[in-house]
């Protein structure tokens, strides 16, 4: 038995889930994951012998750093005869959850509408039309847009872009999780947004 803090446990669980995802096509999946589990248990054991009473997030973070992210592990060891090895700079996501990002490559203002369109697999024009109707009609459109702009992160890295278009369709859990995470650096994005808004309106003049 290894004593572990709640949030450290959750991080570890997510790590194993991503391992499961990345090795889902691998014949020896269960064995590989069990080996990694044992290695982690061993590393935690060393930690506990050194006098720690409970494994915390910092310990988990260190262990994950030692072992490496699931994506890197599976890419670094992929079979050479398998031509679908994902190149590092163009990750293709086949499993997992699609994520909601603002789309930097197709945007009118903040990329909110085309991001939402990607997420639900519909034409961005439709989302934009709905948004315009909300702008003009209901009066809540502008506010809704601004909130979405703050809350939805911009897809910056190739991996984020891959998650924006790949993976499986969304569910409500992902949305709430994203909202929670993004509220944390709301301030910074608020500043970005006011800058972009300023640029946009000064461009219009």
């Amino acid at each position, binding site marked *: 038995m290894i004593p572990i803090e709640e949030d450290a446990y959750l991080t570890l669980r997510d790590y194993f889930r991503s391992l499961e995802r990345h090795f889902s096509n691998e014949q020896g999946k269960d*064995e*590989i994951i069990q080996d990694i589990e044992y290695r982690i248990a*061993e590393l935690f054991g060393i930690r506990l012998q050194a006098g720690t009473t409970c494994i915390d997030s910092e310990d988990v973070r260190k262990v994950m750093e030692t*072992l*490496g992210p699931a994506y890197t*592990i599976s890419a*670094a060891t992929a079979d050479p005869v398998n031509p679908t090895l994902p190149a*590092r700079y163009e990750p293709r996501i086949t499993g997992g959850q699609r994520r909601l990002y603002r789309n930097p490559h197709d945007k009118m203002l903040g990329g909110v509408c085309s991001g939402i369109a990607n997420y639900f697999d519909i034409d961005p024009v439709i989302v934009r039309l709905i948004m315009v109707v909300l702008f003009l009609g209901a009066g809540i459109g502008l506010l809704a847009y601004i909130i979405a702009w703050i809350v939805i992160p911009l897809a910056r890295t190739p991996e984020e872009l891959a998650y924006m278009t790949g993976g499986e369709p969304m569910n409500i859990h992902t949305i709430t999780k994203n909202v929670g995470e993004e509220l944390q650096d709301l301030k910074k994005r608020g500043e970005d947004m006011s800058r972009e808004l300023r640029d946009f309106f000064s461009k219009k003049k």
Partner: protein
Amino acid sequence: MNLENAASQMRKGLLEFCILGIINREKEAYPSDILEQLKQANLLVLEGTLYPLLTRLKNADMLTYRWEESPSGPPRKYFSLTKNGLKFYHKLHETWAELSAAVNHLTS
């Protein structure tokens, strides 16, 4: 042709060769020992990459293992070479000797 890809395939092939080499030298080795030696030689940075390779070599009948209880922590898998694995390792060794001589000659 993508450099990243080619380099990672090359590293992976050599890594398999070296894993077999370590196990051959030690007669029997458990993953954390193998990790220690690979890390000392700067051949491996992320520990996680070892486990898929071991499992694949085992499934290809190059390696076999036995469980051993550990006084502290989880039970350990002790890997050793199978007959096939030993033959394969010697073949790889020959190939490597030829290759490295050729490459050194051509690139020096």
